[in-house]
Protein backbone atom coordinates (compact mmCIF):
# COMPACT_ATOMS: atom_id res chain seq x y z
CA UNK A 1 0.00 0.00 0.00
CA UNK A 2 1.48 3.31 -1.00
CA UNK A 3 0.03 5.24 1.91
CA UNK A 4 1.76 2.91 4.37
CA UNK A 5 5.16 3.52 2.84
CA UNK A 6 4.47 7.24 2.75
CA UNK A 7 3.37 7.24 6.37
CA UNK A 8 6.60 5.65 7.53
CA UNK A 9 8.82 7.98 5.60
CA UNK A 10 9.13 10.81 8.14
CA UNK A 11 9.86 8.37 10.94
CA UNK A 12 12.27 6.42 8.75
CA UNK A 13 14.14 9.59 7.78
CA UNK A 14 14.75 10.75 11.32
CA UNK A 15 14.63 7.50 13.27
CA UNK A 16 12.55 9.05 16.09
CA UNK A 17 9.31 7.72 17.50
CA UNK A 18 6.30 9.80 16.51
CA UNK A 19 4.25 11.72 19.07
CA UNK A 20 1.10 11.22 17.05
CA UNK A 21 0.41 8.39 14.67
CA UNK A 22 -2.65 7.92 12.51
CA UNK A 23 -2.97 4.48 10.95
CA UNK A 24 -5.64 3.79 8.33
CA UNK A 25 -8.14 6.19 9.92
CA UNK A 26 -11.61 6.37 8.43
CA UNK A 27 -14.22 8.85 9.54
CA UNK A 28 -17.59 10.09 8.39
CA UNK A 29 -19.65 13.24 8.62
CA UNK A 30 -23.19 11.87 8.77
CA UNK A 31 -23.00 9.21 6.04
CA UNK A 32 -20.33 10.93 3.93
CA UNK A 33 -17.08 8.99 3.98
CA UNK A 34 -14.57 11.82 4.50
CA UNK A 35 -11.32 10.25 5.73
CA UNK A 36 -10.68 7.13 3.67
CA UNK A 37 -7.74 5.51 5.37
CA UNK A 38 -5.46 8.33 6.51
CA UNK A 39 -2.03 7.36 7.81
CA UNK A 40 0.79 9.66 8.83
CA UNK A 41 3.14 10.46 11.72
CA UNK A 42 3.84 13.67 13.58
CA UNK A 43 7.35 13.79 14.99
CA UNK A 44 8.28 15.40 18.30
CA UNK A 45 9.42 18.99 18.34
CA UNK A 46 8.50 19.53 14.71
CA UNK A 47 5.79 21.37 12.83
CA UNK A 48 3.91 19.10 10.46
CA UNK A 49 1.77 20.98 7.97
CA UNK A 50 -1.34 19.30 6.66
CA UNK A 51 -1.99 20.56 3.16
CA UNK A 52 -4.70 19.95 0.62
CA UNK A 53 -7.54 21.57 -1.25
CA UNK A 54 -10.75 22.74 0.38
CA UNK A 55 -12.79 19.71 1.30
CA UNK A 56 -9.81 17.36 1.19
CA UNK A 57 -10.39 16.40 4.84
CA UNK A 58 -7.85 18.51 6.73
CA UNK A 59 -10.20 19.89 9.36
CA UNK A 60 -11.90 16.50 9.57
CA UNK A 61 -8.51 14.95 10.34
CA UNK A 62 -7.99 17.29 13.30
CA UNK A 63 -11.53 16.75 14.54
CA UNK A 64 -11.12 13.00 14.29
CA UNK A 65 -7.86 13.10 16.26
CA UNK A 66 -9.69 14.99 19.02
CA UNK A 67 -12.60 12.58 18.98
CA UNK A 68 -15.08 15.28 17.97
CA UNK A 69 -15.77 12.92 15.09
CA UNK A 70 -15.45 9.21 15.76
CA UNK A 71 -12.91 7.19 13.79
CA UNK A 72 -14.93 4.27 12.50
CA UNK A 73 -11.82 2.39 11.50
CA UNK A 74 -8.10 2.62 12.14
CA UNK A 75 -6.13 3.76 15.18
CA UNK A 76 -4.85 7.05 16.50
CA UNK A 77 -2.04 6.94 19.06
CA UNK A 78 -0.46 9.70 21.11
CA UNK A 79 2.89 8.78 22.65
CA UNK A 80 2.04 5.19 21.88
CA UNK A 81 -1.27 5.25 23.78
CA UNK A 82 -4.35 4.39 21.74
CA UNK A 83 -6.91 7.17 21.99
CA UNK A 84 -9.17 6.14 19.13
CA UNK A 85 -12.14 5.32 21.36
CA UNK A 86 -11.58 7.87 24.11
CA UNK A 87 -13.99 10.71 24.84
CA UNK A 88 -12.99 14.18 23.70
CA UNK A 89 -12.05 15.45 27.15
CA UNK A 90 -9.98 12.34 27.85
CA UNK A 91 -8.10 12.77 24.55
CA UNK A 92 -7.43 16.45 25.23
CA UNK A 93 -6.25 15.76 28.78
CA UNK A 94 -3.50 13.58 27.40
CA UNK A 95 -1.94 16.87 26.36
CA UNK A 96 -3.51 18.28 23.22
CA UNK A 97 -4.19 21.96 22.59
CA UNK A 98 -6.68 22.80 19.86
CA UNK A 99 -7.03 26.02 17.90
CA UNK A 100 -10.14 25.57 15.76
CA UNK A 101 -10.68 26.92 12.29
CA UNK A 102 -13.21 29.54 13.31
CA UNK A 103 -11.36 30.45 16.50
CA UNK A 104 -14.46 29.70 18.59
CA UNK A 105 -13.57 32.02 21.45
CA UNK A 106 -16.32 32.34 24.03
CA UNK A 107 -17.74 35.72 23.08
CA UNK A 108 -19.58 36.37 26.34
CA UNK A 109 -16.52 35.63 28.49
CA UNK A 110 -13.62 37.99 28.99
CA UNK A 111 -10.20 37.28 27.53
CA UNK A 112 -8.95 36.30 30.98
CA UNK A 113 -11.94 34.00 31.54
CA UNK A 114 -11.37 32.35 28.15
CA UNK A 115 -7.79 31.57 29.15
CA UNK A 116 -8.62 30.48 32.69
CA UNK A 117 -11.32 28.15 31.42
CA UNK A 118 -8.76 26.52 29.16
CA UNK A 119 -6.39 25.82 32.07
CA UNK A 120 -6.55 22.17 32.94
CA UNK A 121 -5.66 20.83 36.38
CA UNK A 122 -1.93 21.28 36.80
CA UNK A 123 -1.68 24.30 34.50
CA UNK A 124 0.68 26.88 35.94
CA UNK A 125 0.34 30.63 36.23
CA UNK A 126 3.72 30.84 34.60
CA UNK A 127 2.37 29.39 31.36
CA UNK A 128 -0.53 31.84 31.43
CA UNK A 129 1.97 34.67 31.88
CA UNK A 130 4.03 33.38 28.96
CA UNK A 131 0.94 33.21 26.75
CA UNK A 132 0.25 36.83 27.62
CA UNK A 133 3.87 37.73 26.90
CA UNK A 134 3.50 36.27 23.45
CA UNK A 135 0.47 38.46 22.78
CA UNK A 136 0.97 41.73 24.68
CA UNK A 137 -2.16 43.00 22.95
CA UNK A 138 -4.23 40.54 24.98
CA UNK A 139 -2.65 41.44 28.29
CA UNK A 140 -4.19 44.90 28.12
CA UNK A 141 -7.55 43.42 27.24
CA UNK A 142 -7.86 40.76 29.91
CA UNK A 143 -11.11 42.19 31.24
CA UNK A 144 -12.61 42.80 27.80
CA UNK A 145 -15.30 40.51 26.40
CA UNK A 146 -13.77 38.26 23.77
CA UNK A 147 -16.72 38.92 21.48
CA UNK A 148 -15.75 42.59 21.23
CA UNK A 149 -12.24 41.84 19.94
CA UNK A 150 -11.11 42.04 16.31
CA UNK A 151 -10.67 38.84 14.30
CA UNK A 152 -6.91 38.94 14.77
CA UNK A 153 -7.20 39.43 18.53
CA UNK A 154 -9.70 36.56 18.71
CA UNK A 155 -7.20 34.38 16.88
CA UNK A 156 -4.62 35.33 19.50
CA UNK A 157 -7.03 34.34 22.27
CA UNK A 158 -7.64 31.03 20.49
CA UNK A 159 -3.89 30.35 20.23
CA UNK A 160 -3.17 31.55 23.77
CA UNK A 161 -5.89 29.18 25.00
CA UNK A 162 -3.88 26.28 23.60
CA UNK A 163 -0.68 27.54 25.23
CA UNK A 164 -1.82 27.81 28.85
CA UNK A 165 -1.34 24.07 29.37
CA UNK A 166 1.82 22.04 29.11
CA UNK A 167 0.66 20.27 25.94
CA UNK A 168 2.41 17.49 24.05
CA UNK A 169 0.81 18.50 20.78
CA UNK A 170 -0.98 21.49 19.31
CA UNK A 171 -3.58 21.08 16.58
CA UNK A 172 -3.91 24.41 14.81
CA UNK A 173 -6.49 24.83 12.06
CA UNK A 174 -5.93 27.60 9.51
CA UNK A 175 -4.76 30.38 11.80
CA UNK A 176 -4.49 32.77 8.83
CA UNK A 177 -8.10 32.33 7.72
CA UNK A 178 -9.98 35.57 7.27
CA UNK A 179 -7.19 37.75 8.66
CA UNK A 180 -5.58 40.83 7.08
CA UNK A 181 -2.01 40.28 5.84
CA UNK A 182 -0.54 42.42 8.63
CA UNK A 183 -2.31 40.30 11.22
CA UNK A 184 -1.26 37.08 9.46
CA UNK A 185 2.34 38.22 9.89
CA UNK A 186 1.78 38.87 13.59
CA UNK A 187 0.22 35.44 14.09
CA UNK A 188 3.01 33.80 12.08
CA UNK A 189 5.63 35.50 14.25
CA UNK A 190 3.91 34.30 17.38
CA UNK A 191 3.76 30.73 16.08
CA UNK A 192 7.40 30.88 15.05
CA UNK A 193 8.14 31.77 18.67
CA UNK A 194 6.12 28.78 19.85
CA UNK A 195 7.75 26.43 17.36
CA UNK A 196 10.46 24.33 18.93
CA UNK A 197 8.86 24.47 22.38
CA UNK A 198 6.20 21.95 21.40
CA UNK A 199 5.00 19.75 18.57
CA UNK A 200 2.49 21.18 16.12
CA UNK A 201 0.15 19.74 13.53
CA UNK A 202 -0.88 22.71 11.45
CA UNK A 203 -3.56 22.97 8.79
CA UNK A 204 -2.77 25.94 6.58
CA UNK A 205 -3.78 27.02 3.08
CA UNK A 206 -1.51 30.06 3.14
CA UNK A 207 1.70 28.68 1.63
CA UNK A 208 3.83 31.55 2.93
CA UNK A 209 2.80 30.76 6.48
CA UNK A 210 3.17 27.03 5.87
CA UNK A 211 6.70 27.62 4.59
CA UNK A 212 7.61 29.85 7.50
CA UNK A 213 6.52 27.27 10.05
CA UNK A 214 6.58 23.81 8.50
CA UNK A 215 9.24 21.16 8.87
CA UNK A 216 7.27 18.25 7.49
CA UNK A 217 4.38 18.29 5.08
CA UNK A 218 1.53 15.86 4.55
CA UNK A 219 -0.75 16.42 1.59
CA UNK A 220 -4.18 14.89 1.60
CA UNK A 221 -6.62 14.68 -1.26
CA UNK A 222 -10.11 13.19 -1.18
CA UNK A 223 -9.55 11.84 2.31
CA UNK A 224 -6.29 10.06 1.49
CA UNK A 225 -2.63 10.91 2.05
CA UNK A 226 -1.09 11.51 -1.37
CA UNK A 227 2.29 12.85 -0.32
CA UNK A 228 4.39 13.01 2.81
CA UNK A 229 7.82 14.55 2.99
CA UNK A 230 9.65 17.65 4.04
CA UNK A 231 8.07 21.09 3.73
CA UNK A 232 11.05 22.22 1.64
CA UNK A 233 10.37 19.46 -0.82
CA UNK A 234 6.75 20.59 -1.26
CA UNK A 235 7.82 24.24 -1.50
CA UNK A 236 10.16 23.39 -4.34
CA UNK A 237 7.81 21.13 -6.28
CA UNK A 238 5.46 23.25 -8.32
CA UNK A 239 3.96 20.29 -10.11
CA UNK A 240 2.96 18.78 -6.75
CA UNK A 241 1.48 22.08 -5.65
CA UNK A 242 -0.46 22.43 -8.88
CA UNK A 243 -1.82 18.90 -8.68
CA UNK A 244 -2.95 18.83 -5.06
CA UNK A 245 -3.08 22.35 -3.72
CA UNK A 246 -4.66 24.13 -6.67
CA UNK A 247 -1.82 26.67 -6.88
CA UNK A 248 0.19 27.62 -9.92
CA UNK A 249 -0.86 27.84 -13.57
CA UNK A 250 -1.81 24.21 -14.13
CA UNK A 251 -4.49 23.95 -11.49
Amino acid at each position, binding site marked *: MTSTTIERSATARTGTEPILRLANVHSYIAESHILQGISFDVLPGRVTVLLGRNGAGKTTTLRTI*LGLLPAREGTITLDGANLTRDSVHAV*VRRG*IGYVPEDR*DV*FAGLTVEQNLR*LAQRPGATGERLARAYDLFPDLKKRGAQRAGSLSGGQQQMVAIA*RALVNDNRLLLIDEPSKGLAPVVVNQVTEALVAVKGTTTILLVEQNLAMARALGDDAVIIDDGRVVHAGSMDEVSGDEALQARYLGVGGHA
Partner: protein
Amino acid sequence: MSTFVLLTLTGLALAAMYFLLAAGLSLIFGLMDVLNFAHGAFFTWGAYSAWWTIDQVSPAGTGSTPAFFLAIVVATVVGAALATIVEVGLLRPLYARPIFQVLVTLGAGLTLSQLTSVIWRPDARVFAQPNWLSDTSTILGARVPNNRFLLIAAALLVLAGMLLFLKKTRYGLIVRAGAENREMVRALGIDVDRAFTLVFALGGALAGLGGAFGAAYFGSIDPSFGSVNLIFAFIVVVIGGLGSVTGSALAAVVIGLAQQFGNYYTSWAGDFVIVLLLAAVLLLRPGGLMGSTR
Protein backbone atom coordinates in the same frame (compact mmCIF):
# COMPACT_ATOMS: atom_id res chain seq x y z
CA MET B 1 -53.06 52.87 47.79
CA SER B 2 -53.23 49.88 50.11
CA THR B 3 -54.65 47.74 47.29
CA PHE B 4 -51.83 48.84 45.02
CA VAL B 5 -49.23 47.92 47.65
CA LEU B 6 -50.87 44.58 48.32
CA LEU B 7 -51.09 43.71 44.64
CA THR B 8 -47.51 44.80 44.02
CA LEU B 9 -46.06 42.79 46.89
CA THR B 10 -48.19 39.74 46.09
CA GLY B 11 -47.24 40.08 42.43
CA LEU B 12 -43.57 40.21 43.37
CA ALA B 13 -43.97 37.11 45.53
CA LEU B 14 -45.60 35.31 42.61
CA ALA B 15 -42.73 36.56 40.45
CA ALA B 16 -40.27 35.14 42.98
CA MET B 17 -41.91 31.73 42.72
CA TYR B 18 -41.90 31.82 38.90
CA PHE B 19 -38.27 32.86 38.98
CA LEU B 20 -37.27 29.88 41.15
CA LEU B 21 -38.91 27.62 38.60
CA ALA B 22 -37.73 29.50 35.50
CA ALA B 23 -34.08 30.05 36.45
CA GLY B 24 -33.34 26.33 36.31
CA LEU B 25 -35.32 25.85 33.10
CA SER B 26 -33.43 28.69 31.48
CA LEU B 27 -29.98 27.45 32.53
CA ILE B 28 -30.81 23.92 31.41
CA PHE B 29 -31.99 25.11 28.02
CA GLY B 30 -29.07 27.51 27.66
CA LEU B 31 -26.42 24.90 28.32
CA MET B 32 -28.01 21.70 27.13
CA ASP B 33 -30.67 22.73 24.60
CA VAL B 34 -33.11 20.60 26.55
CA LEU B 35 -36.70 21.72 27.01
CA ASN B 36 -37.26 20.14 30.37
CA PHE B 37 -40.94 19.34 30.72
CA ALA B 38 -40.17 17.36 33.88
CA HIS B 39 -39.33 20.60 35.68
CA GLY B 40 -42.91 21.07 36.88
CA ALA B 41 -42.79 17.65 38.50
CA PHE B 42 -39.68 18.66 40.49
CA PHE B 43 -41.72 21.64 41.69
CA THR B 44 -44.70 19.41 42.61
CA TRP B 45 -42.40 17.01 44.45
CA GLY B 46 -40.78 19.92 46.25
CA ALA B 47 -44.23 21.00 47.43
CA TYR B 48 -45.32 17.49 48.45
CA SER B 49 -42.07 16.61 50.20
CA ALA B 50 -42.30 19.90 52.13
CA TRP B 51 -45.90 19.18 53.08
CA TRP B 52 -45.02 15.59 54.03
CA THR B 53 -42.07 16.72 56.15
CA ILE B 54 -44.21 19.17 58.12
CA ASP B 55 -46.90 16.50 58.49
CA GLN B 56 -44.34 14.07 59.92
CA VAL B 57 -42.60 16.50 62.24
CA SER B 58 -45.44 18.71 63.50
CA PRO B 59 -48.67 17.63 65.18
CA ALA B 60 -51.61 17.45 62.78
CA GLY B 61 -52.77 20.73 61.27
CA THR B 62 -50.00 22.95 62.60
CA GLY B 63 -46.67 23.87 61.18
CA SER B 64 -43.87 24.70 63.57
CA THR B 65 -41.03 26.97 62.53
CA PRO B 66 -38.31 24.28 62.66
CA ALA B 67 -40.57 21.95 60.68
CA PHE B 68 -41.03 24.60 58.00
CA PHE B 69 -37.31 25.20 57.58
CA LEU B 70 -36.61 21.48 57.59
CA ALA B 71 -39.31 21.13 54.92
CA ILE B 72 -37.54 23.68 52.74
CA VAL B 73 -34.28 21.76 52.98
CA VAL B 74 -36.02 18.46 52.23
CA ALA B 75 -37.84 19.96 49.23
CA THR B 76 -34.57 21.32 47.82
CA VAL B 77 -32.78 18.00 48.26
CA VAL B 78 -35.69 16.04 46.76
CA GLY B 79 -35.79 18.38 43.74
CA ALA B 80 -32.06 18.00 43.18
CA ALA B 81 -32.16 14.23 43.62
CA LEU B 82 -35.05 13.72 41.19
CA ALA B 83 -33.39 15.97 38.62
CA THR B 84 -30.13 14.04 38.91
CA ILE B 85 -31.96 10.75 38.41
CA VAL B 86 -33.81 12.06 35.35
CA GLU B 87 -30.64 13.51 33.82
CA VAL B 88 -28.31 10.59 34.42
CA GLY B 89 -30.86 7.83 33.91
CA LEU B 90 -33.05 9.12 31.11
CA LEU B 91 -31.54 12.10 29.31
CA ARG B 92 -27.89 11.16 29.12
CA PRO B 93 -28.39 8.32 26.65
CA LEU B 94 -30.41 10.67 24.42
CA TYR B 95 -28.21 13.72 23.91
CA ALA B 96 -27.93 13.01 20.21
CA ARG B 97 -31.72 12.84 19.83
CA PRO B 98 -33.48 16.09 20.81
CA ILE B 99 -37.03 14.94 19.99
CA PHE B 100 -36.62 11.88 22.20
CA GLN B 101 -35.42 14.16 24.98
CA VAL B 102 -38.56 16.26 24.83
CA LEU B 103 -40.69 13.11 24.94
CA VAL B 104 -38.70 11.61 27.78
CA THR B 105 -38.90 14.74 29.96
CA LEU B 106 -42.62 14.99 29.20
CA GLY B 107 -43.11 11.34 30.15
CA ALA B 108 -40.98 11.64 33.29
CA GLY B 109 -42.90 14.77 34.28
CA LEU B 110 -46.31 13.13 33.87
CA THR B 111 -45.23 9.98 35.68
CA LEU B 112 -43.67 11.82 38.61
CA SER B 113 -46.71 14.09 38.97
CA GLN B 114 -49.10 11.13 38.83
CA LEU B 115 -47.00 9.36 41.41
CA THR B 116 -47.85 12.05 43.96
CA SER B 117 -51.56 11.30 43.57
CA VAL B 118 -50.89 7.57 43.88
CA ILE B 119 -48.90 8.06 47.07
CA TRP B 120 -50.88 10.90 48.67
CA ARG B 121 -54.26 10.72 46.84
CA PRO B 122 -55.28 13.28 44.22
CA ASP B 123 -57.24 15.70 46.44
CA ALA B 124 -55.78 19.02 47.51
CA ARG B 125 -53.80 19.18 50.75
CA VAL B 126 -53.68 22.13 53.09
CA PHE B 127 -50.12 23.31 53.58
CA ALA B 128 -49.64 23.95 57.30
CA GLN B 129 -47.17 26.73 57.98
CA PRO B 130 -46.08 28.50 61.15
CA ASN B 131 -48.42 31.29 62.26
CA TRP B 132 -45.85 34.03 61.84
CA LEU B 133 -45.61 33.06 58.19
CA SER B 134 -49.33 33.14 57.39
CA ASP B 135 -49.89 36.22 59.57
CA THR B 136 -49.90 39.60 57.90
CA SER B 137 -47.77 42.69 58.28
CA THR B 138 -49.22 46.10 57.56
CA ILE B 139 -47.32 48.11 54.99
CA LEU B 140 -48.71 51.48 53.87
CA GLY B 141 -52.14 50.31 54.97
CA ALA B 142 -51.94 46.99 53.13
CA ARG B 143 -52.06 43.75 55.12
CA VAL B 144 -49.54 41.50 53.40
CA PRO B 145 -48.98 37.84 54.41
CA ASN B 146 -45.45 37.36 55.71
CA ASN B 147 -44.72 34.39 53.47
CA ARG B 148 -44.74 36.87 50.54
CA PHE B 149 -41.69 38.61 52.02
CA LEU B 150 -39.91 35.36 52.71
CA LEU B 151 -40.50 34.23 49.13
CA ILE B 152 -39.18 37.51 47.69
CA ALA B 153 -36.13 37.40 49.96
CA ALA B 154 -35.42 33.79 48.99
CA ALA B 155 -35.63 34.59 45.28
CA LEU B 156 -33.32 37.59 45.68
CA LEU B 157 -30.80 35.41 47.51
CA VAL B 158 -31.03 32.76 44.80
CA LEU B 159 -30.60 35.39 42.08
CA ALA B 160 -27.51 36.83 43.77
CA GLY B 161 -26.13 33.34 44.39
CA MET B 162 -26.63 32.29 40.78
CA LEU B 163 -25.02 35.41 39.39
CA LEU B 164 -22.02 34.86 41.67
CA PHE B 165 -21.89 31.22 40.63
CA LEU B 166 -21.97 32.09 36.92
CA LYS B 167 -19.47 34.93 37.14
CA LYS B 168 -17.02 33.75 39.76
CA THR B 169 -16.78 29.98 39.77
CA ARG B 170 -15.12 27.65 37.30
CA TYR B 171 -18.34 25.67 36.90
CA GLY B 172 -20.15 28.92 36.23
CA LEU B 173 -17.69 29.69 33.44
CA ILE B 174 -18.18 26.19 32.05
CA VAL B 175 -21.94 26.69 32.04
CA ARG B 176 -21.69 30.05 30.27
CA ALA B 177 -19.11 28.86 27.78
CA GLY B 178 -21.07 25.66 27.21
CA ALA B 179 -24.19 27.64 26.40
CA GLU B 180 -22.20 29.36 23.65
CA ASN B 181 -20.29 26.42 22.23
CA ARG B 182 -20.43 23.03 23.90
CA GLU B 183 -18.07 21.37 21.46
CA MET B 184 -15.31 23.88 22.11
CA VAL B 185 -15.68 23.39 25.86
CA ARG B 186 -15.16 19.67 25.29
CA ALA B 187 -12.16 20.43 23.10
CA LEU B 188 -10.61 22.24 26.08
CA GLY B 189 -10.60 18.94 27.93
CA ILE B 190 -13.66 19.65 30.07
CA ASP B 191 -16.15 16.92 30.84
CA VAL B 192 -19.32 18.72 29.78
CA ASP B 193 -21.55 15.83 30.84
CA ARG B 194 -20.63 16.53 34.44
CA ALA B 195 -21.61 20.15 33.99
CA PHE B 196 -24.93 18.94 32.53
CA THR B 197 -25.66 16.89 35.62
CA LEU B 198 -24.69 19.77 37.88
CA VAL B 199 -26.91 22.25 36.06
CA PHE B 200 -29.79 19.81 36.03
CA ALA B 201 -29.41 19.12 39.75
CA LEU B 202 -29.15 22.84 40.47
CA GLY B 203 -32.29 23.50 38.43
CA GLY B 204 -34.08 20.68 40.24
CA ALA B 205 -33.01 22.06 43.63
CA LEU B 206 -34.40 25.49 42.75
CA ALA B 207 -37.63 23.95 41.47
CA GLY B 208 -37.97 21.96 44.71
CA LEU B 209 -37.33 25.09 46.74
CA GLY B 210 -39.84 26.97 44.60
CA GLY B 211 -42.38 24.20 45.19
CA ALA B 212 -42.06 24.50 48.96
CA PHE B 213 -42.41 28.29 48.85
CA GLY B 214 -45.20 28.00 46.29
CA ALA B 215 -47.08 25.74 48.70
CA ALA B 216 -46.73 28.39 51.41
CA TYR B 217 -47.86 31.07 48.95
CA PHE B 218 -51.02 29.29 47.80
CA GLY B 219 -51.70 27.53 51.13
CA SER B 220 -52.63 24.23 49.49
CA ILE B 221 -51.21 21.80 46.96
CA ASP B 222 -52.44 19.15 44.55
CA PRO B 223 -50.77 16.91 41.95
CA SER B 224 -51.25 19.44 39.12
CA PHE B 225 -49.46 22.12 41.16
CA GLY B 226 -46.28 21.99 39.09
CA SER B 227 -47.75 21.64 35.62
CA VAL B 228 -49.90 24.78 36.03
CA ASN B 229 -46.95 26.87 37.16
CA LEU B 230 -44.58 25.31 34.61
CA ILE B 231 -46.55 26.96 31.80
CA PHE B 232 -45.94 30.39 33.30
CA ALA B 233 -42.32 29.53 34.00
CA PHE B 234 -41.80 28.64 30.34
CA ILE B 235 -43.35 31.97 29.35
CA VAL B 236 -40.97 33.70 31.78
CA VAL B 237 -38.01 31.90 30.22
CA VAL B 238 -39.02 32.89 26.69
CA ILE B 239 -39.74 36.51 27.60
CA GLY B 240 -36.55 36.78 29.64
CA GLY B 241 -34.35 35.25 26.98
CA LEU B 242 -33.29 31.62 26.92
CA GLY B 243 -30.26 31.03 29.08
CA SER B 244 -30.30 34.40 30.84
CA VAL B 245 -30.80 34.29 34.61
CA THR B 246 -31.15 38.06 34.91
CA GLY B 247 -33.62 38.00 32.03
CA SER B 248 -35.67 35.36 33.82
CA ALA B 249 -35.74 37.48 36.98
CA LEU B 250 -36.87 40.53 35.03
CA ALA B 251 -39.50 38.62 33.06
CA ALA B 252 -40.78 36.93 36.22
CA VAL B 253 -41.43 40.37 37.76
CA VAL B 254 -43.28 41.49 34.63
CA ILE B 255 -45.40 38.33 34.54
CA GLY B 256 -46.08 38.23 38.28
CA LEU B 257 -47.24 41.84 38.41
CA ALA B 258 -49.27 41.63 35.19
CA GLN B 259 -51.03 38.54 36.46
CA GLN B 260 -51.84 39.99 39.88
CA PHE B 261 -53.11 43.32 38.62
CA GLY B 262 -54.94 41.73 35.68
CA ASN B 263 -56.71 39.26 37.91
CA TYR B 264 -57.67 41.86 40.47
CA TYR B 265 -59.37 44.27 38.12
CA THR B 266 -61.04 41.68 35.89
CA SER B 267 -61.87 38.03 36.22
CA TRP B 268 -60.12 37.12 32.99
CA ALA B 269 -57.37 39.57 32.10
CA GLY B 270 -54.52 38.14 34.23
CA ASP B 271 -53.57 35.25 31.97
CA PHE B 272 -54.71 37.06 28.83
CA VAL B 273 -52.28 39.92 29.41
CA ILE B 274 -49.46 37.41 29.79
CA VAL B 275 -50.20 35.80 26.46
CA LEU B 276 -50.32 39.27 24.87
CA LEU B 277 -46.95 40.10 26.44
CA LEU B 278 -45.52 36.85 25.16
CA ALA B 279 -46.76 37.56 21.64
CA ALA B 280 -45.39 41.11 21.76
CA VAL B 281 -41.94 39.94 22.89
CA LEU B 282 -41.83 37.20 20.27
CA LEU B 283 -42.71 39.70 17.55
CA LEU B 284 -40.49 42.58 18.66
CA ARG B 285 -37.59 40.88 20.42
CA PRO B 286 -37.61 37.19 19.48
CA GLY B 287 -34.49 36.57 21.57
CA GLY B 288 -36.26 37.77 24.72
CA LEU B 289 -35.51 40.75 26.92
CA MET B 290 -31.96 39.72 27.79
CA GLY B 291 -31.50 36.95 25.25
CA SER B 292 -28.66 36.43 22.85
CA THR B 293 -29.38 36.22 19.15
CA ARG B 294 -28.85 32.51 18.88
